[in-house]
């Protein structure tokens, strides 16, 4: 099986770009409908069900409406950045998908086509670099609107993105150590080799990545930049028509991309259980795996394998999309200081500690001479499971992200202290703000 080359390769590339872009835009459009329908069902409503059967044409109606709406431009807005900001936001959200492998390689009469738009060697670094570019659009839009709510939204967006970018990167380090490479195809391949998807051997990294991804895509419970109840709609308060729509597409595009990333990094990407679908380019050959004696087992690409694995990838991605929507309509929004506390006091140290723990574990396993495979994964699963339990126990007791109950207790303590009624005499400092009420 030879990789595709020459003119057919260019045709295949164009087809992949167009196809993937179309699918992505369709998923984004229908994610808006899914969000409205699912939120309605959760709240015992019906949701939009009038346009077309089951409301299936609603995204199209929304699109037409957005095109026909009046485009407003605030008189005091910075015209250049106001127009530029939605474009800056939407582009990274859409192009990140280029490095995510969506299915097993497809066999064609002209050669084997990789089902990935750009298998760039920098892989995940490209994703991190571009997804953090999106925040510029938010900040610029908020600032250029010359509106205090939009401005606060933009500020919050920048602070939140910076905070959680750190945790996101740290949660990826164990994955990179385990895979030994940064391309996403290699990550899928290593999960196929291990026989366990990384959600188990790297469970804590998975949890950290999930939380950070929520924060990165500004979804509830982390939607501080939008925060309807506080900031009207945050950074896009002044936007209307297609500019508003661009922000919406960017938000949902971010969600889809983050879902696809989580599926690829932690749920095996397009992999299905068993070795029948494994495929990877190894020294110019498409291989399925290695035999006991180190010789390669050849893979045979087939169109039905591509189709089935694409379906698997789609199901995993849609599962995370469902989780996104489900969480949004369940959990209330964090307070701003809680978001920052969670990011810097919980996620950052946990990510660092977990990276250290995994480094030690992987190094020990390699030193002992255990070969990379299923048992290797089981040992990692055990270690990570313990770390996850410890982490959950730690954050679950209100030690770090304290809710209102802990605040009340602190206030009561401070009030006692202010009255001079301090039997413990532990010399705690009383903040003026804590004594007020």
């Amino acid at each position, binding site marked *: 099986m030879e990789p595709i080359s020459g003119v057919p390769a260019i045709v295949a590339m164009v087809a992949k770009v167009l196809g993937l872009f179309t699918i992505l835009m369709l998923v984004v459009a229908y994610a808006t409908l899914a969000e409205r329908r699912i939120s309605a*069902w959760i709240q015992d409503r019906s949701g939009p069900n009038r346009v077309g059967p089951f409301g299936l044409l609603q995204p199209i109606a929304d699109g037409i409406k957005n095109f026909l709406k009046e485009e407003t431009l605030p008189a005091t807005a910075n015209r250049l950045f106001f127009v530029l900001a939605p474009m800056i936001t939407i582009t990274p959200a859409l192009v990140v998908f280029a490095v995510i492998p969506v299915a097993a390689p497809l066999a064609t009469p002209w050669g084997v086509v990789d089902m990935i738009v750009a298998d760039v060697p920098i892989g995940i670094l490209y994703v991190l670099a571009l997804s953090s570019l999106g925040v510029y659009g938010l900040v610029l839009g908020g600032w250029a609107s010359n509106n205090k709510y939009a401005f606060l939204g933009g500020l919050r967006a920048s602070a939140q993105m910076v905070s959680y970018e750190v945790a996101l990167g740290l949660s990826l380090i164990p994955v990179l150590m385990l895979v030994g490479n940064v391309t996403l195809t290699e990550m899928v391949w290593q999960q196929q080799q291990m026989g366990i998807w990384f959600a188990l051997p790297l469970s804590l990294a998975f949890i950290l990545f999930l939380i950070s991804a929520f924060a990165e895509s500004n979804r509830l419970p982390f939607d501080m930049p939008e925060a309807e109840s506080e900031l009207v709609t945050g950074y896009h308060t002044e936007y209307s028509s297609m500019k508003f729509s661009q922000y919406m597409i960017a938000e949902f595009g971010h969600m889809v991309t983050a879902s696809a990333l989580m599926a690829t990094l932690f749920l095996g990407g397009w992999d299905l259980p068993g070795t029948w679908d494994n495929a990877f380019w190894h020294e110019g050959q498409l291989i399925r795996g290695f035999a006991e004696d180190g010789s390669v087992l050849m893979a045979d690409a087939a169109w039905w394998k591509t189709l089935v694995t694409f379906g698997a990838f789609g199901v995993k991605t849609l599962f995370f999309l469902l989780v996104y929507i489900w969480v949004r309509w369940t959990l209330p929004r964090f307070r701003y200081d809680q978001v920052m506390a969670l990011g810097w006091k919980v996620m950052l140290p946990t990510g660092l500690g977990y990276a250290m723990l995994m480094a030690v574990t992987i190094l020990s396993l390699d030193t002992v001479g255990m070969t990379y495979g299923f048992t290797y994964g089981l040992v990692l699963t055990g270690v990570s499971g313990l770390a996850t339990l410890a982490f*959950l126990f730690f954050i679950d*007791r209100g030690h770090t*992200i304290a*809710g209102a109950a802990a605040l009340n*207790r602190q206030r009561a303590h401070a009030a006692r202290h202010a009255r001079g009624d301090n039997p413990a005499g532990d010399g705690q400092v009383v903040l003026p703000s804590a004594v007020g009420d």
Partner: protein
Amino acid sequence: MAISVKVMERPEPEETSYLRAALSGMALTFKHLINPVKVTQQYPEEQTDLHPRWRGTHRMEVHADGRPKCVACGLCPTVCPANCIRLVGGEDDQGNRYPIVYEIDEFRCIFCGMCQEVCPVEAIHVGRHFENAEYTRDRFVYDLDRLMEQDHPTTLLWDPSDPRSE
């Protein structure tokens, strides 16, 4: 009646499990997601049964020969608290009084139903009807012909011996 306020006890932070609370919340919403409580009425397809004493837009009863039952006694414009009925009465050759002009401004009307209660010949009625949308405002002044054309069910008068219409 005073509003009763239930003050919830805040649990101590050591007793609080945010994780369990979040997960039980997720379980609850998932239960509703897969098995929603159906309360929405799909309005144009499913119509509500209006109460027998629902008071909607008016309707004028007519005789078998097509004349309005109204005898232009002038009681309804007199009793109308919103002053929305305009009546100009006339008399024919036999000495029967009839309305020359009978107009009800449905925008001014407060749908109290007193016109129906006061009518001695049971001519004017408020109706069990609510779909009154029009494209222009002047269409909301119903003249005599319009009132006679209405064919929706009329409202039952309040019966003191059966105050809840049971």
